[in-house]
């Protein structure tokens, strides 16, 4: 499974959706989740860069897992997601800072069809508040944006989470370009 995580990690970096060692990827494994380690780079994933954590309680592996493990865990417990991708994609972050609403309404047709509205949520990095807000948002949406931080996208498989991540960034890019060109 780490090879799938590696494959999509490389794509995310390649297309500018993730940078440096920011962002994280996980896959649900029954009563557990396989998640990238804290400090790992998404385009350099190997079997030592992912860690298996328990879904229902913290254990020692939380110490070396992504700082957002608490968020992934809460989303899996509260939604039907089986894969989650979190990145700091630039247009989504920028637009979340420019938009004061609770939702972002895409302007392009495809995003309107598939994403409908994109929730904008708040909460500190790796905090219980963020976990709760995102789990609530992703119980009804494919993806959400954390204000000033980045996107969380869910799917049944990693590819679906990847598609949703790309869709949100595309929707935000179009929205941003429309906004800028209006001036």
């Amino acid at each position, binding site marked *: 499974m780490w090879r799938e995580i590696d494959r999509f990690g490389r794509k995310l970096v390649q297309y500018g959706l993730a940078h440096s060692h920011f962002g994280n990827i996980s896959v649900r494994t029954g009563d557990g989740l396989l998640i990238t380690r*804290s400090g790992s780079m998404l385009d350099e994933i190997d079997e030592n860069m992912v860690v298996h954590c328990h879904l229902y309680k913290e254990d*020692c592996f939380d*110490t*070396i897992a992504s*700082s957002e*493990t608490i968020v992934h865990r809460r989303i899996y417990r509260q939604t039907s997601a089986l894969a989650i991708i979190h990145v700091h994609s630039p247009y989504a972050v920028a637009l979340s800072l420019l938009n004061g609403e609770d939702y972002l309404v895409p302007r392009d047709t495809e995003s309107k069809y598939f994403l409908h509205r994109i929730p904008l949520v708040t909460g*500190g990095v*790796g*905090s219980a508040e963020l976990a709760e807000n995102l789990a609530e948002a992703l119980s009804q949406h494919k993806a959400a944006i954390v204000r000033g931080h980045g996107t969380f996208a869910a799917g049944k498989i990693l590819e679906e989470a990847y598609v949703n991540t790309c869709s949100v960034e595309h929707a935000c890019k179009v929205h941003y370009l429309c906004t800028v060109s209006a001036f």
Partner: protein
Amino acid sequence: MAIVLVGVNLLFERVFYFMFGWWGKGLEVDLGSGEITVKQLPREILEMYLGGRGLGVKLLWDYLPAGIDPLSPQNVLIFAAGPLTGTRTPAAGRHAVVAKSPLTGTIFDGNAGGYWGTALKKAGYDYICFKGRAASPVFLMVRGERVSLENADFLWGKNTGQTMKLLGDRFSAESKGTFKYRFSCIGRAGEKGVAFASIMSDSGNVCGRGGLGAVMGSKNLKAIVVGGGKRVPIADDDVFARYRRDILRLLVASPVSSKGLSSFGTPVLVNLINYMRLLPTNNFRSVYFPEADEISGEKIRDNFERKKKACYGCPIACKARAGEMEIPEYETLALLGPACNNSSLESIMEINTLCNDYGLDTITTGATLACYAEILGKNLQREEMLELIRQVGENEGAGAQLAGGSAFLAAKRGKPEAAMQVKKLELPGYDPRGALGMALGYATSNRGGCHLRAYMIGPEIFGKPKLLNRLTLADKAGLLPVFQNFFAAMDSLVVCKFVTFGAGEEELAAILGSVTGVYYSAQDLLRIGERIWNLERLFNQREGFSAGDDTLPERFFQDSADGYAGGIDRDEFLRALREYYFYRGWTEEGIPSAEKLAQLEIEV
């Protein structure tokens, strides 16, 4: 009993000597004559060595002649706070203790958390330095500017628990509001000169390693009581508050500090280190303990009602009690557990309680028991271990041989290869074969086999600040000095190492500047650490240590352990050691060059 009152805080002193963060003064106590004096510290010494470990090392270098017996009256014992101690800097409620070690013969510093260091700062002092030996047992009483030596006959012969209780009974009525008395003391092991006797501060905060408690006992100094109501002056409160928030935010964002350590304490490491094949088992003859889960952080969480404890100003709160017993730290679990082939959590907790009461370093105790078991060729059972520890604490019977530490014991028994130590300090809970930066760190540590000098667990285990490949020595020789310098500075501020799972030298330099009003860059902080490291190296050279002491027990170069076939490659290790000397600016013999010392403004 001579009682000496020291001078009042004169007005001119505040006008002409005012500093932020530091008070610029310390107490010098001659236990032989009973004379107590207040010594003003030059500002440049504080700015160059900060406080804590750095200040202690500087004073020890200046005060101590070469070659003295560490348990003789000539040794000097220094308790020092740092410029951040007593402020609300996260996890900065620590103090350092520095002396020549009776266990290693090296310069030695340890530090402890709790509230004692903060009380020292609130009393208006940066340090206390003890010289000589009292004719009969005494304790030092510091009530702000009133300082006296008091008769300690009623405490002598008592272990730490009873000593703390007697002191608490005597002084708790005088503690009011923010003015609280805090205690540091030794147990019977310190009185009896056990080479790895510790110093207990408050209850459960131990300055554990190197036998500093024995130095205290050799001076007939049973305890130090400090209390004060001063506020540590901060140069810019608003800027300080901002930098403090920055650090707190980083600690929340780090899973190590906000999840693992906060939820489980250091026992979270047991299963993790075992999973990584690093857990010292059967006196470092294996790196995997099949029953590790029985003594793990998860087991403790599921079976005990943990009551968390925090040191002054610490948001992590990694310590905990279960009823009347302290939850053991990871190192204690590792060395009294797997290293001794012991999977009984209850017995480890019982032994830990006994060690703390006697005032014994649990790492060296566990490692020495593991060494003893290997020499005997059998596992030690719970009752045997408890009885041996009592004998060690009393320095009598079979315990008398163990009371000198594992190197002393193994040499006496004609099996030096059974002692898992560097420079006679026993190795902690990480097998060096599986973390090669740590291995080089053990070998080059100025106080012997210690994980805290370079704290390579950060990058090699936790991925902080960046995950390094723990199975290679490549590039480690260049990185290691940076980490060693950084943690020498941290120990001088004095800030807990766990802060570095979130914050780095930039944040710490910034908050130091806001407290002291003196501008420090991150590079300045590292340079101070480098100065301290080099001075420690000079001290050890003066005591006869050389490059030949920068090595590891033979076991790690020869024996395979699960996944580490053939042990550490000796040639590669020696190459990395030579590179390390080069990066340090030292000669090929590991001696700091004249140019390096001049660059660091160290006068020899």
